C-alpha cells in the first residue's frame, strides 16, 4: 500500500509541477518552460543561464503566478472535499453541491454583492475586506450545511439519505433567495452575480491567494488523518461504531473540513462545479478506494484539473476569457452522465 501511495503521489506531484509551469508560461506574453523555471529560481537566489525580457518577471510574479497558485489551492480544496464527502455519504456520486455548500455560499455572495453598501466593514479594498468576504461566505455555506445536517439527525445520529433530501430542499430555498437578490440588484450588481455564479479565477492577486490559503490548508492537513476511520466507515455507520470509530465526531469533522475547503474557494472564485465530483472518481479508478491514498491524491488531482481548466478558459478565445465554471461544467457533466450510466445498478440498491 505504501508503494502504491508514493507512486500515485509522485506521479501526480510531477504532473502538477509540469502543468503549473506550462500554465505560468502561457498567455499574451509567452514564456518557455525554461524561462519560467529561470525566473522562479532567480526569486530564491539561484541564477540559471536563461535569457528573458525585462517585463517577463513582472508578468510572472504579479499576474500569472498568483492566478495559477489560486487555481492550485481552490482545485485542491474542491478535490479533497469531494473525496471526504463521498466517504461520508458512502456514495461515489456525492458532491459538495449536494449538501448545500455551493447554494449557501451563492446566496451569501449574492447578498454581499447586493447589500454590501449597507455593511460598514465592507467598504475598504483591503485584505481585511477580502478576508471578511471569505469568512462571511464561509459562514453562509456552513450555516446551510448545518441546517441540512441538523434536519437529518434522528435519535442522536444523522441519517445520510435524509441528509440528501434535506440538501435538495435547502438548495431550492437558497436558490429562491438568490433569485430574489438578482431581482432587486441593479445592472452592475446583476453582472457581478452572474459572473460570480459562472466561476472565474480572473481576479486573482496575492491577496486573494493569502485569503484562501488557510481555509484549504487546514483540511488538506487534517483530512488525511481521518483516512483509517473513513475506510472503516465504508462498512456502514453501525459497523464503524462496532469497530471503534466515533461516528458522530467523524461526521462532524468531515462536514466542517469539506465545507472549509470548498467555501473559501467559492467566496473568491464563484461556483466551480464537477471537480469535487469527478476527481475522486478518476483517482479511485487507479488507486482503489483506500482513503490513505485517495485523500492526498484527490487534492493533487483537483489542483491539476483546475489549473488546466483555467489555462483553457483564458486561451481558447484569447484575448477574452471564458468563465472557468463553464469549462468544468462542459467537461464534467458528460463524465457525470457516464458515471450514472456505469453505476446505475449500484445506485438502484
Amino acid at each position, binding site marked *: 500500500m505504501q508503494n502504491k501511495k508514493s507512486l500515485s503521489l509522485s506521479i501526480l506531484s510531477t504532473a502538477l509541477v509540469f502543468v503549473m509551469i506550462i500554465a505560468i508560461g502561457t498567455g499574451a506574453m509567452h514564456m518557455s518552460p525554461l524561462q519560467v523555471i529561470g525566473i522562479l529560481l532567480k526569486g530564491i537566489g539561484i541564477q540559471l543561464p536563461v535569457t528573458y525580457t525585462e517585463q517577463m518577471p513582472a508578468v510572472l510574479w504579479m499576474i500569472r503566478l498568483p492566478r495559477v497558485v489560486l487555481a492550485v489551492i481552490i482545485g485542491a480544496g474542491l478535490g479533497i472535499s469531494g473525496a471526504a464527502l463521498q466517504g461520508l455519504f458512502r456514495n*461515489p456520486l456525492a458532491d459538495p453541491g449536494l449538501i448545500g455548500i455551493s447554494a449557501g455560499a451563492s446566496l451569501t455572495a449574492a447578498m454581499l454583492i447586493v447589500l454590501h453598501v449597507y455593511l460598514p466593514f465592507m467598504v475598504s479594498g483591503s485584505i481585511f475586506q477580502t478576508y471578511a468576504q471569505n469568512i462571511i461566505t464561509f459562514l453562509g455555506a456552513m450555516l446551510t450545511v448545518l441546517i441540512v445536517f441538523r434536519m437529518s439527525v434522528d*435519535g442522536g445520529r444523522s441519517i445520510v439519505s435524509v441528509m440528501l433530501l434535506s440538501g435538495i430542499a435547502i438548495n431550492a430555498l437558497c436558490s429562491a433567495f438568490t433569485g430574489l437578490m438578482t431581482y432587486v440588484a441593479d445592472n452592475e450588481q446583476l453582472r457581478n452575480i452572474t459572473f460570480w455564479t459562472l466561476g472565474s479565477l480572473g481576479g486573482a492577486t496575492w491577496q486573494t491567494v493569502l485569503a484562501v490559503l488557510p481555509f484549504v490548508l487546514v483540511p488538506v492537513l487534517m483530512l488525511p488523518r481521518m483516512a483509517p*476511520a473513513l475506510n*472503516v466507515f*465504508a462498512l456502514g455507520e453501525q459497523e464503524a461504531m*462496532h*469497530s471503534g470509530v*466515533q461516528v458522530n465526531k467523524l461526521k462532524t469533522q468531515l462536514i466542517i473540513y469539506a465545507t472549509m475547503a470548498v467555501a473559501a474557494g467559492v467566496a473568491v472564485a464563484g461556483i466551480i462545479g464537477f471537480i469535487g465530483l469527478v476527481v475522486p472518481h478518476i483517482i479511485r479508478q487507479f488507486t482503489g478506494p483506500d482513503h490513505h491514498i485517495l485523500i492526498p491524491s484527490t487534492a493533487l488531482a483537483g489542483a491539476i484539473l483546475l489549473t488546466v481548466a483555467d489555462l483553457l478558459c483564458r486561451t481558447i478565445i484569447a484575448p477574452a476569457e471564458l468563465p472557468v465554471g463553464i469549462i468544468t461544467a462542459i467537461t464534467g457533466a458528460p463524465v457525470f452522465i457516464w458515471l450514472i450510466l456505469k453505476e446505475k445498478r449500484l445506485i438502484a*440498491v
Partner: protein
Amino acid sequence: MLVVKDVSLSFGNVPVLAQMQLQAQPGELCVLMGANGAGKSTLLRTIAGEYKHYRGSILLNGQELHHMPVDAQARQRAVLSQQLNLQMPFTVAEVVAMGRYAYRASERLYDKEIVTYALKLLQVYDLKDRSYPTLSGGQQQRVQMARVLAQLLEAPALHAMDYTGKKMLLLDEPVTGMDILHQQLALQLAVQLSRQGVLVIAVLHDFQLAAAYAQRVFFLKNGRVYAQGPVATVLSPLHIRHCFGVDVSVLHHSLCAYPLVVTNTAATLFSSSALQATNAY
C-alpha cells in the same frame, strides 16, 4: 460476564424490549431464538451499544455500557451484523484489516499476522486480493466473519490466549447465506472461541444448529425472555409452540448427541389460527 437487568427499549411509542433480564458467563455459547419481531436483533444491538436510550442496566465485565467509550467497547467485543452493504471496491484483505481499527493506537505487532490468520481460518485467504463487491453472498459473509475475528483476537492463533472476562462476540444470524459446510465451520469456530473464554451470543433461526452448538438457549417472545436454560430443557414442543406458533416433535436418536426438532407439517397447517380465522367466515 454480561448482566442485562430490567432493560426496556422503545422506538417512538413501540416497545421492543420490556424488562429484559439476561445473564451470560464467559466461555458460554448462548443462542437467542424467537419469532420475527421478538426482539432478538434489537437486544443484540443494544448490547452492542447501538441504542443509547435504553432504560435499565447492561453490565459488561462489571462496567456499565453507558459509561464505556466507543473504542473501549470495540476492544472488548466484536459484532457481526446482518445485511452489510459495502459498495466501495475494497479488497478482501483490506476489509478484514478494518477489524484492527480499534487497536490502531496500541502496538501493532501482530496486526498483519492476525489478519492473515483470520483469512485462512475462514478459508478466504485465496480470495484476499479479490474486490469485495464481486464475491457471492456467502463468501462476503465469511469475509465479514474473518473481519470480526480479527477484531476479537489479540494473537495470531486461536489457542494462544485465554480471553476469559476480556472478550465478547455478538453474532446476528451469522450463517445466513452460507453453504452447509461453512455453516458448520462458522459455528465450530464460535465454539472454539467460547472454549478460549470468549462470551459468544448468537441469534439463530435453525433449531438443529442451536441444538448442536449452544450451551444455553434463550427463547424471546414480545421483548421478554420466555425461557432459558440448556438445550434439553428449552427446546421442548411446548415452548416452541408458544414462541413460534408451530407444532414440533423433539426426537432423540442414538447416532445423534443432541435432540432433533421436527415440524409436524400437516398438524401445523390445520391447526393454524390463520386458517381457523378464514374458516370462520
